[in-house]
């Protein structure tokens, strides 16, 4: 078999394709995004970006009931949005196999919270597989389809940032085609009105018992016998760290930690003197193992906050072995260097919007996307972020509290289509009086520039209808809708002031494509005439990495343009009160 290096997400896509997946849907979300971006490259699979995760899961469920093998992918918080269909899908079950990949983000590399998706498996009584690297990502998705069709249940594959975004060597194979054999009319099976639903509820428990038996027998839930002094129970990425930190220990490695393989856990516990459960985030396994009457330990030593690593586990091992004295740290700390948080890219169309908003100092209720970066100084123009869509609905709530403060809401275009429309409907319906900014950069930018219903193009590259934000706003009952070019600061400033002064709700749509995908606005870098620069620092308030503050002497500074980074957006030209920032070729 040919061996290739694949990321976890590439391996999920490869595995789904080899398993004959017919239909796949997702909404982009780090760290899950690249699964569908890779799957769409393979032939004979229909792939789509759905407006949100709930739609993606419902869409995949419909296709699975028609007998197709289907895939839905999302990040952990996406499953909150899709939780509603999941909770009943396990009741009605599926016909064609259905895999649901949910990628958690322990350590919050690119997320607003830490969530342990394993709890959802328990809540929905869905089996959950947990690959620990790319090789297993490819293998387990095939296994997921087998389990799914054998037990008529959707199967969750839980990934994490370090599984999805780490690469490893994977042996690749051929595709085993699958053909959807059609929807079967059987309302008793698929319509959970109470009289049928109660029977489904009972059947769900029966299936759960059988899945538990399966979990105890499957070869991928595996005991590795080494020393009988210590037994490690683990699953997912935690296994990879534990394998290096506890090389002498016996292991119970769980490919499918849920339903809990009780008999296997009990069998393993009898072969070792002491048991340590190594798991990332919550004490999901540990708590259950203890409920079986086994004296397992885990979170007493292993942090439940943040992600695990070799360093974290090595520290945990010292505590576990009672070596808490640890005289001095083995690793010398680095000299202090200035922090480098992520920022708006040079030339980003969002920068000018937040520069102008920040000058008026309203309370800014933001949302999920690149624009969350406006929270950092010097822009400091983000006061609250909750979840997708809350930039509209929570802003409305803040306005209705009627404290006399000026409230504005900010969402992006992809977020607007994801879950902003219902919030705007609420404002129209309940007569909200506030300004909502929709920053339309024609892209789901933060996750790496995916298409969405407003871009006019599908995931499979087909041109399509372009949903209009303005038409949606008007349909929701918003009379004041203004479209403005965010690179034109004087115009933008006037629009923002006029709309904030209005006595009714208003939507300002700032329209300019993300500079990283549309280069038509990229121009020659600016230059700064050092004699004309009065070192006032006003341009630095734009927080542009293309403008660098350089010390000259005695605490004095000049600003220079970094020509490698500058995209020539000319915001700084508009901000400089002395005309010191010039286009290339423009005379001083």
């Amino acid at each position: 078999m040919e061996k290739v290096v694949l990321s976890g997400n590439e391996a999920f896509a490869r595995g789904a394709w080899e398993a004959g997946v017919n239909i796949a849907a997702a909404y982009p979300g780090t760290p899950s995004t690249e699964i569908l971006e890779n799957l769409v490259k393979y032939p004979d699979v229909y792939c789509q970006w759905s407006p949100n995760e709930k739609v993606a899961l419902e869409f995949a469920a419909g296709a699975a009931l028609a007998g197709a093998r289907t895939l839905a992918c999302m990040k952990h918080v996406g499953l909150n949005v899709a939780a509603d269909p999941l909770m009943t899908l396990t009741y009605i079950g599926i016909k064609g196999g259905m895999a649901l990949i949910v990628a958690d983000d322990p350590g919050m590399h690119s997320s607003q919270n830490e969530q342990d998706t394993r709890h959802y498996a328990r809540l929905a009584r869905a089996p959950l597989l947990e690959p620990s690297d790319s090789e297993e990502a490819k293998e387990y998705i095939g296994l997921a389809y087998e389990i799914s069709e054998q037990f008529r249940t959707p199967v969750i594959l839980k990934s994490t940032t370090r599984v999805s975004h780490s690469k490893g060597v994977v042996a690749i194979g051929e595709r085993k085609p699958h053909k959807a054999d059609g929807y079967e009319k059987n309302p008793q099976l698929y319509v959970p009105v109470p009289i049928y639903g109660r029977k489904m509820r009972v059947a769900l428990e029966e299936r759960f018992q059988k899945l538990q038996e399966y979990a105890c027998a499957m070869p991928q839930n595996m005991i590795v016998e080494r020393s009988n002094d210590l037994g490690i129970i683990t699953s997912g990425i935690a296994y990879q760290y534990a394998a290096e930190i506890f090389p002498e220990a016996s292991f119970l490695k769980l490919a499918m930690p849920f339903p809990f393989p009780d008999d296997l856990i009990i069998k393993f516990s009898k072969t070792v003197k002491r048991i340590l459960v190594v798991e990332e985030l919550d004490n999901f396994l540990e708590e259950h193992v203890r409920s079986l009457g086994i004296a397992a330990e885990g979170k007493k030593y292993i942090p439940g906050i943040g992600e695990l690593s070799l360093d974290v586990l090595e520290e945990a091992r010292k505590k576990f072995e009672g070596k808490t004295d640890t005289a001095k740290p083995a690793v010398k700390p680095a000299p202090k260097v200035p922090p480098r948080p992520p920022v708006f890219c040079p030339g980003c169309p969002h920068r000018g919007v937040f520069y102008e908003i920040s000058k008026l100092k309203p309370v800014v209720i933001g949302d999920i996307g690149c624009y969350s970066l406006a929270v950092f100084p010097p822009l400091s123009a983000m006061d609250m972020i909750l979840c997708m869509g809350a930039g509209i609905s929570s802003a409305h709530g803040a306005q209705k509290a009627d404290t006399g403060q000026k409230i504005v809401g900010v969402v992006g275009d992809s977020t607007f289509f994801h879950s902003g429309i219902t919030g705007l409907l609420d404002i129209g319906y309940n007569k909200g009086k506030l300004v909502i900014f929709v920053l339309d950069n024609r892209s789901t930018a933060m996750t790496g520039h995916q298409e969405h219903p407003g871009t006019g193009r599908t995931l499979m590259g087909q041109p399509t209808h372009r949903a209009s934000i303005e038409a949606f706003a008007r349909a929701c009952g918003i009379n004041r809708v203004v479209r403005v070019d965010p690179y034109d600061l004087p115009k933008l400033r006037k629009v923002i002031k006029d709309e904030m002064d209005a006595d009714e709700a208003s939507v300002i749509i700032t329209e300019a494509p993300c500079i990283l995908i549309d280069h038509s606005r990229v121009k020659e870098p600016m230059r700064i005439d050092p004699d004309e620069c009065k070192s006032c620092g006003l341009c630095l308030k734009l927080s542009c990495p293309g403008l660098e503050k350089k010390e000259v002497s005695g605490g004095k500074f000049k600003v220079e343009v970094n020509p490698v980074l500058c995209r020539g957006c000319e915001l700084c030209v508009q901000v400089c009160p002395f005309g010191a920032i010039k286009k290339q070729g423009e005379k001083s």
Partner: protein
Amino acid sequence: MKQITNIVLSGVGGQGILLASKLVSEAALLEGYDVKANEVHGMAQRGGSVIGQIRFGKKVFSPLVKLGSAHILLAMEIIESIRYAPYLSPTGLALVNTQRVIPTTVSSGQAEYPADPEGLVKQTFPRFQMADCLAIAKEAGDTRCTNTVMVGWLSNHLPFSAESWQKVLEQCIKPKFISMNLKAFALGRKIS
């Protein structure tokens, strides 16, 4: 575990760490090693500080490198070498691009960029090499191949054949940019 080679790449989001990491991992596979690599996507890009980790050997478990265990630290920006110094083993080698990218925290007055970053590199690392890879990339044709210059530089310290590197470059880089990147790689290999 001794047979595993650990490499840490550091730099600023947008400098091309993903491609550099891909070139090294693919070369390791071609040479018959087990390899794992970790990358940073999403929020961590956008001009933020970025780390990439690569481990190769007979059998690799963790995709993450333990602090104090990297054999090589390849830093694409000079202070990003200092930030990730704790990853380097006391006997490890730091390969540092002297390019400076001033963070907005400095420009907005929240922090200060070190006055003598070269001096800081000398103080921090017992074993290091420094080079102006941005200038070398310009010589190759485009500042955007700075990452390839650095992989060429790194290749001097890895047990992979010139043929493997050649093959990997041809496999991973778009045909339009291949000749420029081959030149960049070759210039990087001359750094000592």
